[in-house]
Every structure is written in C-alpha cells, then in structure tokens.
C-alpha cells in the first residue's frame, strides 16, 4: 500500500492516471455526441481549464477539491443551458461566458497565494 501511494505521487504516474481519466472522458463524450470531432476537443480544452481554475486553484485558494471541481463543472453547464434557453447567439454566448468567469473569480477568488 505504501509502495502504491509513493508511486502514485510520482509525476509520471500522475500523468498516467490523468491520461486514463482523459481516455474515459473521451469515450463518454464521444458516446454522448455519437461521434468524436477535433472541434469539440479544442472547445473542451478551454472549458476543462476553466473548471479546474474555478473549482480549485482560484476559489479554493490554491487547493483543488473534488467538490469544487464538480460545482464548477455544473456551474458552467447550467450557464450554457441558461444562455441557450435565453436564445443568445454564438457571439453573445461566448461573451457572457467570459464575463461571468471573470466576475466569479473576481468576487470569489483572490487567495493569499493564488499565483499560477
């Protein structure tokens, strides 16, 4: 058990675990869409970074928590659903998403040492 824990804290092992999780996520996303595409990958990359940023590093003051990540992911999804329901076009949707992200980290962020 100790050996497993030590191995799991190695950078290469973390990368490997990350790769496995990403692989699983990719299958789920492709399954949900019924197909995979390069464009969805590029868009998801930005969204994933925002989720990690909102849910962990900035709001939690540098400590990412599973609950924070889950909350941030839900928050972004609901934001998209809301903007779609309001009938916003693509440009307005992106603009609002960006403003909300900046608003949230401005209000909730600002830990002692939340440098990148």
């Amino acid at each position, binding site marked *: 058990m100790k050996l497993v824990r030590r191995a799991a804290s190695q950078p290469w092992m973390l990368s490997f675990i990350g790769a496995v999780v990403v692989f699983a996520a990719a299958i789920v996303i492709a399954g949900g869409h019924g197909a995979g595409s390069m464009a969805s990958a590029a868009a998801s990359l930005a969204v994933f970074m925002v989720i990690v940023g909102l849910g962990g590093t900035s709001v939690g003051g540098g400590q990412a928590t599973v609950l924070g990540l889950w909350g941030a992911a839900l928050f972004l999804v609901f934001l998209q659903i809301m903007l779609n329901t309001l009938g916003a076009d693509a440009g307005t949707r992106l603009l609002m998403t960006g403003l909300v992200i900046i608003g949230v*980290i401005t209000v909730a962020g600002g830990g002692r040492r939340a440098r990148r």
Partner: protein
Amino acid sequence: MSAALMPGRAIVTRYLAPRRLLRTLLPSLSLALVLIAIGWLNPRAISYFGFNLMLNLAIPIALATIAQMFVITVNDLDLSIGFFVSFIGCVGATWLPQRPLIGIAMILGGILVYALVGALIRLRNLPSIVGTLGMSFVWQGAAIILLPQPGGAVPNWLHGPMSYHTPYLPFPIVAAIVIGLVTHFGLMRTSFGTVLRGAGGNPQAIETAGWSILAIKMIAFALAGVFGVLSGLSLIGIATAADPNVGGGYTLLSIAGVILGGGEFVGGRVSPIGAVIGALTLALASNSLLSFMHVSPDWQIGANGLILIVILAARALINRQEAAQ
C-alpha cells in the same frame, strides 16, 4: 595574471562557456536547421520570392509572440492573445474602413481593457491563466458579434505596407529584424525594461525600491495589447480579410515561440530576439517544412508538436547539464 586580463576572462566564462553559448544559440540553431532542411528538400524555396511566400504569415505570429513575451516577463501567462488578435482583425475589417474614429476608439479601448485585466490580476491576486482564459471567451464573442462570417474590407493603408517589396531582403525578414531589435532595445537596454524584468524576477525587491507592481503589471499588459493590435492589423493587411476564429492557434504558438526563443515561464527571463526567432522557426516548421516533406495536413498538427518537443527537450538537456556543473 595581470588585472587587465580579468575583464576579458570574465566575458569568456560568462558568455563563451560552451553550454551557455549553446543555450543562447539554440533558437538560431533550430531556425538554421529548419532552413537547411527546407533548402535541401526544395532548393528553390531559398530565394527572395520563396521567403516572401513562406514567411508572410510569420509577421503577425512574431508580433503576437512579442505580446505574449511582455506578459511572461511579469510572471503571468496570456491565454487571450489569440482571440484578441482576431478581435482587432474584425474591428480593422469592419469599423476601421467605414467609421475610422469609432474603429480607432475600439482599438484603444482594447488596449485599455488589457491594462485593466493586468490590474485585476494583480489587485485580486488571481491566477492569470483563468483570468485571461475568461478574456479569451470575451474577445472571441466580441469578434463573432462584429463579423459572424470571415470577410470584411481592409483599408488600403493597411494592405499597402504589408505587400511592400523591400530591395535585397524580403519584407518579412526586414520586419522581423526591426521587431526584434526595437523590443530588444526597449526591454534589455532601457532602465524601464530592467524594472519590468525585475518585476518578474523579484517583485519584492522592485516594490521595496519604490516601484508600483500594479503600475508595472498594467504597463506590461498594455504593451501586450499594443503588440496584439499590431499583430491583428498586420494579419488582415496580409490576408485582406478578417476571420473571427483565425487567432485561436496564435495563443499556443505565441507561448511556444517565447519558450523556444529561450524564455522561462517564471523569473522575468525572456529574450525578445529569441522570441522573434522562435516565432519564425515555428512558422516555417509548421507550414513550409511539413508541406515540403509531404506530411499530410491530418498529421501536420501532430508533427508540429513533435518538432516542438524535440527542441524543448534539447534545451532542457542543456539546462540540466549547465546546472550540474
């Protein structure tokens, strides 16, 4: 040992130690290697006309890389530069020709927003990655609102200079030399440039010395905005049309260019001339070289990444050996 010899010796150990020299020359070596490969694959590309064609789109990339470099100098990272370039391009192709005053006001407003983002990041102690990523959504949205489909009309005074044919040396090379030398002088030779780099290297020391880190961050971000504007305007000057999504690739290219050119993510260690050379190398390697090698477009993105990893691995290896000494 006479005292007169000492300064010379210091220069030798400081600048001419083999590994340090190798690290300084690595950006130029990578560029030379890419050029040799292109010349070997297609000798006719190494000509006035060939360089004009191959490096045309390198000018906006080099300008975006310099913009990114200013942000990296103060220990931040700008993920919004690509879509800011798109946004400026869309302003330049819609408002600038029709209502020049409103167009110029929008461009100046963009630079002001950049400075304010720098202030926000400093005041609220935000991670710059998330803040600028949020801004990239804002710029992309604004660009799409301005110009939903690629197109627009570019003013003649923008298109004219970008298609100018300089004697002897192709225009993109002249432009790259000018960009590199101007920013090198500004950042490495002036006292304010030193303060700017100091804010990345040791903010506490700069603050103790009486400088406002807030003002420095705002100026660094505003400078990034200025070069982003130049990048966007030069891009539409070359392409004669704007595309709201063209800048997406610029963000990562600009970061790669700065790092390829010898910059570090933290510590205010950047090299303007290296950044320009890095941008040229990336532009050549990602388009011309891979096309001449008959790599199919499907594989070009992957091959591009591979080239980048090889060059960065070489640098990491040299750094490690230097540290071990």
